[in-house]
């Protein structure tokens, strides 16, 4: 009994710790730390999506940044509306339902749905592609989307981009803007986390993993790859869209340069280093994505001239070294660390509550 409870507690521990830390930081941190950890929430949301697609379903995507781009532009255009865009001299075509401006919070579910739809449409032809071809297709998306955003200037503001109105705490609540943005981002991330958890531990997650590990066997067992693979794309891009909307609100500016190909590449690297196939991996990946570039420029622990002149070299080498040391990512490493404990608890659980003693050879 105790062993079982202990096992469950161990499973919930990361969640509990995260919640406590999030609240603690929210209450005590200064403006800049709040800002930094808001970005962590945003990338956490994005990486949850990428994790489901690449980790649980095994489809390598080099285009996650493109879906964030879509979400960000949806949010920007929705928040500004026709009047806002007109200030920049941009007039979207009449048939486009741009609206007259929306409260930023509401653009997040809007971006979620619209980007999910785009992801779904992308997923359908992508069924024919696998491995390298799929990587190329997602890569092509990441390259093309900024160019498309630049071309359709009347809707997106083109290369010059658009400023969103600076965020302000809504409804006159008495908390600072940065704090509000922090809680907004973490609130969205929490909702997405729960959604992700439900999907992953349920039938959908099992189907995804079955397709990832043994697609042929899965198909033979009645799991339709077409349905679940497309679903994976739709869900992961919806998450990216929501994250993109949050990013647009946080940065208060979007233009094609804010979503370069390097974003997609680094998001993939982050989720792998954080730990594929585990939800906490997405959190580690987000922490890494947010803090490693800043600290590669100013290494806090080790100071060397190299760092200031060539932060990229430090960053690249670190990526490689982490892949050597922790191929399962940080989440995998933590799981390994706790493995003796979980194994012990599982054994205790089993010996205490035998289901059926398997008969020994030679005994009655």
């Amino acid at each position, binding site marked *: 009994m105790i062993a079982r409870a202990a096992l469950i507690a161990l499973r919930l521990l990361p969640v509990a710790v995260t919640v406590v830390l999030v609240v603690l930081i929210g209450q005590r941190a200064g403006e800049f730390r709040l800002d930094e950890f808001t970005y962590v929430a945003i990338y956490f949301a994005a990486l949850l999506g990428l994790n489901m697609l*690449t980790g649980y379903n095994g489809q*390598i995507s080099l285009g996650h940044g493109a879906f964030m781009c879509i979400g960000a532009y949806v949010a920007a255009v929705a928040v500004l509306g026709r009047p806002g865009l007109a200030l920049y001299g941009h007039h979207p075509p009449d048939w486009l339902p741009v609206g007259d401006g929306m409260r930023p919070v509401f653009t997040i579910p809007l971006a979620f749905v619209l980007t999910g739809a785009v992801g779904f449409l992308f997923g359908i*032809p992508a069924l*024919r*592609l*696998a*491995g*390298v*071809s799929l*990587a*190329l*297709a997602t*890569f*092509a998306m990441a*390259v*093309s989307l900024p*160019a*498309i955003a*630049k*071309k359709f200037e009347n809707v997106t503001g083109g290369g010059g981009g658009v400023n969103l109105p600076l965020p302000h705490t809504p409804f006159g609540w008495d908390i600072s803007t940065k704090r509000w943005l922090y809680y907004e981002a973490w609130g969205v991330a929490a909702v997405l986390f729960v959604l992700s958890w439900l999907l992953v531990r349920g039938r959908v997650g099992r189907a995804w993993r079955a397709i990832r590990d043994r697609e*042929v066997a899965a198909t*033979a067992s009645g799991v339709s790859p077409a349905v679940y693979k497309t679903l994976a794309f739709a869900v992961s891009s919806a998450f990216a869209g929501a994250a993109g909307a949050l990013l647009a609100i946080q940065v208060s500016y979007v233009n094609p340069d804010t979503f370069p*190909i390097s974003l997609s*590449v680094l998001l*993939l*690297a982050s989720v*792998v*280093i954080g730990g*594929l196939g585990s939800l906490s991996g997405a959190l580690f990946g987000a922490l890494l994505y947010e803090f490693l570039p800043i600290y590669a420029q100013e290494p806090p622990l080790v100071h060397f001239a190299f760092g200031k*002149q*060539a*932060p*990229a*070299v430090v*960053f*690249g*080498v*670190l*990526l*490689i070294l982490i*892949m*050597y040391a922790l*191929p399962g990512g940080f989440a995998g490493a933590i799981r390994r660390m706790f493995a003796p404990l979980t194994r012990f608890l599982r054994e205790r659980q089993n010996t205490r509550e035998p289901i059926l003693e398997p008969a020994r050879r030679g005994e009655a």
Partner: protein
Amino acid sequence: MLAFTWPEFFQQITSGLASGAIYASLALALVLIYRATDVINFAQGEMATFTTYIAWMLMQHGLPYWPAFVLTLVIAFAGGFAIERVVIRPVENRPEIVIVIVTIGMLIAINGLTGWIWGSEVKAFDSPFPNRTVDVAGVAISLQDVGTFCVCLATVLVLWLFFRFTTLGLAMRAAAVNPGASRLLGVRVGWMLAIGWGLAAALGAVAGMMAAPTTFLDPNMMLVILIYAFAAAVLGGIDSPVGAVVGGLTLGVLVNLLGRYVAFVGEELRLPTALAILLTVLVIRPQGLFGHAVVRRV
């Protein structure tokens, strides 16, 4: 839009073939590594840039072109060999995604290293071909482009001969297809992989030295070319050298024609449109133009 004239049409095509030859050269290197080790080396372009800078440095120190060229190829081969043994070997047997991340890390690191060592100011790079342009029926064809094109074709030919008719080539193919059986037959699989990377690095160096006279030398020279090369390699069939060349040339011409003759596409959407067309081809024929159809055995 400017009126259509035949000379200009052919000019667009020849220019497209010229840039396509550069994409094809880098695509060849990608294909080689993929055939040898089943890995897409995202750092291929940066390795090519780095070795091209080495060639530049050698020439700055007084070495004439051809000795510098050959020496660079040797250095590139050694570098590629070393990278496979030192950087890739520890993660050889890990899942594909891990190796992808390692090559991405290499891309970032080598790009930073190139900029740090040589600075980001643009530099001119010598060409072995005469710096002249001939006029053929109204179409200007630069000898540099002709030379690049010929080198590209020659490289494919050399590779084909190498894999088909030499023992080493056969051993490399065997090691790629069935490492276990090859080991039993006495093939040193580890060395074959390393040689594959070395050869690919040398190919990359050739691509860089062919490209540099026209694109000029700067640390980010190959970043965008890698996108085209990747697309070309996959379009052609990721394990087919001939496919890489066909893919590269096709892509070069397609981008030019789309930009010039399709008003909606204009200059801004040339690359996205070309990529979209490519992907449509891939959806219809997932193994690429010359690739082998993957047969899944249950």
